[in-house]
């Protein structure tokens, strides 16, 4: 039995196998994207496409899945190292680019699901519009409202269209600061919805 199979020993039946056959695209490798990538890796995802134009800074370490050794590295590359240190059997593609309407389809077309994990609200609405318009039927999960430290139970997963979901409380932005617990809880809501979709158990939930 290889490492990957051993990792799945405690997984719910069928989850690891379904995810192993699947690919996920992560648009933005910050607080949401880095934690989502790690959760998807631990859950069995077979392929990850990571895209971010940014470099790791010390100020990211309060919530993002990087450490001091990663400072200055392109985020997508540093995240790839983290993923492969969990499970070297995952195929990881990285893009050190600014994502926009002109390249989103090309970069993520081979993925079964796309995570919106940007920080700017303009970029968030841009990719949601781009995926719904240019990639009909492709599931997308967005994060919206995970700032501050207010009660995380106010965060939820909302279905806004067939194959489109938004997680978060919808109101807590960056002005209240970003702290690891709520960012990771939102990332967890997003990863969990993806697992439901990829295993065929939550498409219409």
């Amino acid at each position, binding site marked *: 039995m290889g490492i990957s199979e051993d990792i799945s020993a405690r997984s719910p039946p069928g989850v690891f196998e379904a995810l192993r056959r699947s690919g996920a695209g992560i648009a933005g490798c910050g*607080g949401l994207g880095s934690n989502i990538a790690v959760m998807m890796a631990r859950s069995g995802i077979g392929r990850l496409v990571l895209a971010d134009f940014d470099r790791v800074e010390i100020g990211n370490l309060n919530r993002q899945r990087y450490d001091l050794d990663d400072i200055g590295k392109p985020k997508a590359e540093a995240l790839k190292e983290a993923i492969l240190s969990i499970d070297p059997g995952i195929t990881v593609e990285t893009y050190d680019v600014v994502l926009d309407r002109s390249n989103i389809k090309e970069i993520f077309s081979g993925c079964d699901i796309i995570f919106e994990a940007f920080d700017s609200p303009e970029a968030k609405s841009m990719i949601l519009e781009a995926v719904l318009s240019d990639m009909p039927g492709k599931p997308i999960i967005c994060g919206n*409202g995970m700032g501050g430290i207010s009660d995380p139970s106010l965060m939820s997963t909302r279905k806004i269209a067939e194959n489109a979901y938004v997680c978060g409380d919808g109101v807590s*932005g960056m002005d209240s600061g970003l702290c690891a617990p709520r960012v990771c809880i939102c990332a967890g809501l997003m990863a969990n919805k993806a697992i439901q979709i990829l295993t065929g158990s939550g498409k219409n939930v």
Partner: protein
Amino acid sequence: MKVNGENESIAGGMTVKEYLDGRGYDASKSAVLLNGKVVPRAEFGSVTLSDGDSMEIVSFVGGG
């Protein structure tokens, strides 16, 4: 019509942009679905709303 699941009365012929502006939404941070179909941002000013419509507005805040 329905907006984010709530019943609402709107003036006849109102555009998506007029609705967003009137309710204080920032169009550049919003995504709009009308009857399950995305309304491209470039068409906010030309697509009009009518009584039986169902609209979903996702108004994004920063953070990720």
